[in-house]
Structures are given as structure tokens and as C-alpha cells.
């Protein structure tokens, strides 16, 4: 009885740690997106500061490719929107995962209690 409980406990624990890792991964991805967001915001503002006389290049690999100013602006704006969308998606995922991990945590604690009780009884016996 106690061993079965113990096995169960271990399994649940592993699942829980797995969940935690997922949560942290999503969080780091989200943070990356945040930095990209600020970056793109700055780029957009700086592009606004420039006028049509300067040439804009985009770094694609080792190559600097000439771009049109307006095109560049449009691209940056679109990228910004994309990043925002991604952030929201990640947030939703994160919330979901948090909830699941909470449930799991509760389950774990109850199992732990049972296990301890079982151990106590086994100890007595």
C-alpha cells in the first residue's frame, strides 16, 4: 500500500516538474518577445526621424540589403503587430499552465499527506 502510494507520488512529482519547466520556458519566450517589442518600437521611432534621402539596409545573414524607407517602415510596423500578438498568445498559454500546475500541486500535496499517513501506519505496524 505504501509503495504503491510512493510510486504514485513519484509519478505525480515528475509530471509537476515537467509542467514547471514548460511554464518557465513560456515565460522566457515571452520575455524575449518583450525585448523585441521595445527594440522594434525604437526602430520605428528612428525610422520616423529619418527622411527619404537616407538609404535603409536590412541585414540578412552577412548581407546588407538595400530597402526602401517606406517599405522598411511598413515591415517594422507589421513586425510590431506580430510581436504583440505573440505576446498575448504566450500570456494565455502561461495562464493556462499556471492553473494546471496549481491543480497539480494540490493533488501532489494530498497524495503526500496520504503517503505520510500510510507510512505512519506502516511504521506502527
Amino acid at each position, binding site marked *: 500500500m505504501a509503495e504503491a502510494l510512493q510510486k504514485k507520488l513519484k509519478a505525480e512529482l515528475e509530471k509537476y516538474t515537467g509542467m514547471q519547466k514548460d511554464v518557465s520556458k513560456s515565460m522566457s519566450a515571452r520575455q524575449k518577445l518583450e525585448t523585441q517589442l521595445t527594440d522594434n518600437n*525604437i526602430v520605428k521611432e*528612428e*525610422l520616423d526621424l529619418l527622411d527619404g534621402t537616407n538609404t535603409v539596409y536590412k541585414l540578412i545573414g552577412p548581407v546588407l540589403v538595400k530597402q526602401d524607407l517606406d517599405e522598411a517602415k511598413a515591415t517594422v510596423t507589421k513586425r510590431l503587430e506580430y510581436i504583440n500578438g505573440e505576446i498575448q498568445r504566450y500570456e494565455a498559454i502561461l495562464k493556462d499552465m499556471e492553473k494546471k500546475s496549481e491543480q497539480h500541486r494540490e493533488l501532489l500535496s494530498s497524495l503526500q499527506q496520504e503517503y505520510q499517513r500510510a507510512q505512519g501506519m506502516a511504521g506502527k505496524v
Partner: protein
Amino acid sequence: MAEEGKMNTEHLGGVVRLREEHEKVVRDCDSRLQHWKKVSGDYEALNERLQTLPDQLSYDIMVPFGPLAFMPGKLVHTNEVTALLGDNWFAKCSSKQAQKLVNHRMKYVKREMDALSKTKKNFEARAGFAKDLETISASKGDCIDIREEEGNHDAALTKGKQRIAHKPNSKPKCEAVLDLKEEEEEEEDEDEEEGRDGGSRRAVLTEEELWARLDELEKQEELRDEQDRLSDTPDMNGEDTSSLSSEEEKDGEAAAPVNGLGLKPSWTSPHSEAPPTADRKEEECDDDEEGDGSCLPTIFFSHTVEPKKVRINTGKNTMLKFSERKEQKEHSKKKKKNGHNNGHSLHELHKITTPTDIYRLFVDVKNGEPVPRKSILKSRSRENSVCSDTSESSAADFEERRMIGRSFSHDELTHSDTSDGITEEDSPTAVPLHPASRFEAFSGTVVEKDPMPSAVPHLTIVPPALPTILERKQEEVTSDAPPPEQAPKRVSKFKAARLQQK
């Protein structure tokens, strides 16, 4: 106490951890701030370089060739700068434009630094508090943790047996409310005294302690009465109130398991006085007036001499003598209240020490019942007012207000003036000044209809810049007397109020 000890250690541990966390945040903020400072420094240097770069068409420099070698070379096209805009975007621009970009970035960096420093300060403060908390809970130093627990309701029930839910128009009995107040004060006092003793607060004191306490309170009472006497209350304060208070105390003692009388029942102490309390007391004031003819709902303040008689020039070649005595007699005739509640001179009630006292004293009388006024600042209509003869009393009122205003301007205090000495702005006098039926020269009542002189600092609104010189007052009396006469006769009370407020 063991529990307390345990709580302390837990508390201590938690507080220590809290402080550590706060300090961690502060350190983090610090490091980030350092980073941004470096960035800022870099940008400054860049700015300078961009400034000097276009000075020459080309520069002779040693070009780094790999990590270990240099080669002599020339720096050309000094005005053309390819700037990284972020996210793999580049822009070719002149050095001036590049400078603009750099400035823009500096702004951003500065913003970040400001935010960081703010958070840092915030958390430093929090860490400081946590530290204080730590020292407090670790050693009971100068600060004592004041804790107040619930659970006094039984005593309340037994003692204040007449306690009912007070509605604004209800009039609970004097003793009950006083007892309750006493109790409240006691509770509070005791809690503060005893500090952390959770359960021991309800311990019954011994008789000797009680008597000792009584003596203390009596002494306090006498002291207070001395002060009251000094502040010009015109009649017997001390004995009555002290007797009353001692009565009360004895009552309190006898009534219930005594919790140790805290403060003496102070009549004028606010403590959540509700209008009903005010009403009741007001009533008792009136009752007192009946009997003694000596108390008035006046506001008594120190360093004023209450003028007992005032000569008022109504501007019609008549002089009205406003006599306090007359007014009191007036009130005593007018007011037929429930009869004497306690025949004590509830002088203390008239003494206004807190804003609640004002509300207590200035109540409307509707159908012979005092009703707490919703706002003492609103001007009243003539009909609700006390004045009987609008022409005369309006002039009289005006003059009266002058007097009041003048005294205000002198001392900037509200005096216990003739009838009311009220710091009301436009509203009529308090309830007792009601003789609505007497149409005489001057009924002794003062109704403040017009706005107070501007001399009163903060309580007046719309002061029509009344001077404080007597001569000019007389002028204005004559000039202003006519308009108020006309106005109330024709307009509705609301309009009158509005007119007054103008």
C-alpha cells in the same frame, strides 16, 4: 505568553526574509542601473565622435587588422554613417542625423534609469521598514505593539441595556448613550494601556482600584471645570457636571461588570456621536434652559468676553437691545420639550470642541422635535428661520452679524457671541432661537441671513467684503437693509436661499 513568544520568532523569521528579499531587489536595481549608466556613457562618447568626425574630409588612422595587427589607413566619407537601428535594420545617414538618432536613444536610456532608480528607492524604503519591524518584534523597545481584540459585546449588552439602533430622528436616553460612550472610551483606553494582553482585558478591577479611579476622574473633572469657568461659560458648570459625571461613574460601576472606568464620560468628546445623541443633548440643553434659563446652545471659546447686551442700530432710528437674558427667557417660554431629563446643566454640551459638537447643537426644529440638520452650511429659508419680523430682524440680524464679524475680525475666533456666536455662514441660528410668534422690536433672537463678513477666514462663503469699521457698517446697514426686506416677501424660500448665497 508562550504563544506570543512563538509568534514573535515566526514573525521575526518572516520579517528577516522579507528584508532580505527587499535587499535583493535593491541590489538587482543597482546592477541594472550600472548597466544603463555604462550605456549612457557610451552614447555620450559616440555623440562627441560624431560631432568631430565631419571636421576633416579624411583621417589618417591605424586600421585594426584582425585581433593583433594594425595597418595604416585613411578614414574617408566622414559624413556618411551607417547606423544600426535595431533588429537588423541599418540606415545610412549623415553624422548629424546619426547624432539625432543617438539623442533619441539617450532619452530612452534615461527613462529606464529613472524608472529603475524609483523602484530602487521604493524598495530601499520597504527594506528599511522591514528592518524596523524586525527590531521591534525582536526586542520590545520603545515601540509597543498595540493590539485590540474584539469581544466586548457582552459588557456592552449588560451595561447599555437601553441601547437600540439609532435612527437619525430617534432620541436615545441620556444614560444609555453616556454609558456606552464611557464604555467605548474605557475599552479604547484599556486596550492602549494593556497593550498585548489579549484576554486579560476584561478582568474586573478590585473595588479599591475603582475608588481610586473614581477619585482620579473627579480630579480631572474639576480641572476641566476650572478651564470651563475660565472660558466664560456664564453659569454653573463645575458642580453639576462633576456631580453628573460622578453620578454616571457610579452608575457605570453599579450597572455591570465594570471594566475599569477609563476616561471620565466627557460630554463633548466626539467618539462617534451620532445626531441622535446630539439631538437628545440639544433637547436637554433646552430643558435646562427651561429650568435654569442659563444655558444656551452657544459656542464657547476661550479669550472672549461674551457681550451680554448689544445695541443694534436697525437703521430706522431705533435701537434694539439685544439681551441675552431676554433671549433665554424667550427660549424657555418657547421650548416645551420632554421635560428635564437630568436636571444637570448640560453646559458641557454647549461647549463645542469638535465639529461633531456643532452638528449636535445646531439642529432644526420640526414639529417641535429637534432634527439633525444635514448641513450647517446651507442657508435656510426665512420660513425655517427664527425671525418673526423680517424687516426688523433682518436688519437686526445683519447688525448682529456685523458684531459677530467684527469680533471675528479681531480675534479670528468665533466668539460665543450674543445669541449664537455661530460660525455658520448663512444659516439661521440654532434651534432654540425660535420665537416665531413674537412680533416685537427685537425678540432677542438673531437670525443670520446674510453672508458673514469676509473677516471670518475659512468658514464663510461669498462674503460681500464687509468692513469691520463701525461707521461703514452703519452705512451698509442702511443700504442693505432695504434689499433684504424686499426679497423674502416675494420669493420662495429656495430662491431666498439662493439670493442670500449670492
